[in-house]
């Protein structure tokens, strides 16, 4: 325990192909549930419609376009998983709830307490860490790598990320107020809110009155976005639509909450990889997996 370099384990580095990506053995951490999970790692528990799988942290890389098999065009956001690993397990007995702590993107310089903490987990320090609630059958051992193949093309996901900060925004931008007329005698108040209340009664401004203030920079969740494509080699997920935040931001992706049970996944892709994709399946997968539109019929034909 003399120098920091001894504490940090040496490791295969960031963006490598899946053949060079190791899945670590179960941890040194003291957790009965984790040891139990490691012991039964050969038989993964069966997925049920009530199971909740772990989510992942990815980086928003940018946007592109996508044409489905019928020629319909849709915007797509590309998310990349960079060294996503499970860092901790929260259990019912010890913490009162069941969750997995997931980390993303290796980091070099950390404070000594964090370095010691990560060396005990036998994992490289991570830049972004978040927890995901899971059911007890979806618990994974510490150090498990999560990959893009955890998601099934055609399934629905929720994406959470901090929105772009707009600073101190005026009332027209923040609340879509229409302001005042540009002419006809209006002086110095073209973008203002106007009146803020009544007169003698109630003789106050109500709480929550829409006013100017800081806008953006908050956590926003976009729900039920379809996963269009998965790249198992580069660990990319192509999601339909837009996602809050700027490029290279850390976003949390998990299975959609508003689609219950089996409806999250395409009906012939059940059961999904549970608790996550295993090495053997990952090795056999081709690089690109693209979702079909799932409609079954051509959207460009009209009833005749």
């Amino acid at each position, binding site marked *: 325990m003399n120098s920091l370099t001894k504490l940090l384990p040496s490791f295969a580095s960031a963006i490598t192909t899946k053949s060079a990506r190791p899945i670590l053995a179960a941890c040194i951490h003291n957790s009965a549930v984790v040891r139990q999970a490691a012991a039964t790692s050969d038989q993964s528990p069966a997925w049920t419609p009530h199971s909740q799988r772990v989510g992942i942290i990815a980086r928003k890389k940018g946007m592109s376009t996508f044409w489905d098999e019928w020629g319909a065009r849709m915007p797509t956001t590309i998310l990349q998983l960079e060294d996503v690993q499970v860092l901790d397990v929260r259990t019912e007995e010890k913490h009162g709830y069941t969750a997995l702590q997931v980390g993303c993107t290796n980091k070099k310089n950390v404070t000594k307490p964090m370095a010691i903490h990560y060396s005990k987990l036998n994992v490289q320090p991570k830049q972004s860490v978040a927890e995901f609630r899971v059911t007890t059958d979806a618990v994974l051992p510490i150090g498990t790598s999560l990959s893009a193949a955890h998601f099934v093309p055609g399934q629905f996901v929720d994406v959470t990320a901090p929105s772009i900060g707009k600073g101190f925004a005026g009332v027209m931008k923040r609340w879509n107020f229409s302001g005042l007329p540009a002419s006809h005698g209006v002086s110095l108040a073209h973008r203002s809110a106007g009146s803020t209340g009544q007169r003698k009664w109630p003789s106050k401004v109500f709480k929550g009155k829409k006013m100017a203030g800081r806008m953006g920079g908050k956590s926003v969740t976009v729900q039920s976005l379809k996963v269009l494509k998965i790249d198992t080699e580069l660990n990319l997920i192509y999601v339909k639509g837009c996602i809050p935040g700027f490029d290279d931001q850390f976003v949390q992706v998990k299975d959609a909450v508003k689609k219950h049970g089996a409806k999250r996944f395409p009906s012939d892709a059940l059961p999904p990889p549970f608790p*996550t994709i295993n090495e053997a399946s990952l090795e056999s997968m081709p690089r*690109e997996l*693209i979702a079909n539109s799932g409609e079954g019929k051509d959207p460009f034909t009209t009833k005749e």
Partner: protein
Amino acid sequence: MSTATETVKYTPPSSIHVPVEQFPVPRVTKKNVIEVVSQEQVKRANVDGRTELFSRKNPDRIQPGAVLLVETLNSKAKESTSTFMGVVIAIRRKGLETSFILRNIVMKVGVEQRFALYSPMLKSIKVLQPAGAKDTKFRRAKLFYLRDQPGKAFQSLQSLWKLEQAEKVAAKKN
């Protein structure tokens, strides 16, 4: 996680399709994932050499002012196509999202249509008259001024259309 090394063959369910032509894994750095991936998609979508038609350096590229005939599929289920002929007034180069606008005057009404170059519904592009021919030389990249001052830009389109129809009939006869 199973540690056994069984060779499990991956059979995709019907909701997933695996493209036949899979690219080998490219070398990516932290910054150029989008560029690399969209270049691959352009290669895959470039089925009939349309990238070369719109590249920046090709001497035979399509330039603003050229007259094109574009054939688009109405739907993938049917064979029927729509054709549109017009003068290229704008080319927007954005990798996979590259698009161009054709303008024509149809029954005294100006009509513009924007086509996505790599759309699977775009069947073919035929150059009827390259730019710079027959005193229709344009010195701009975007010819939006033709909406107000068309000049002689659209005069030759009718005759070109008739030529094209004649060629089609002749081809059918043969």
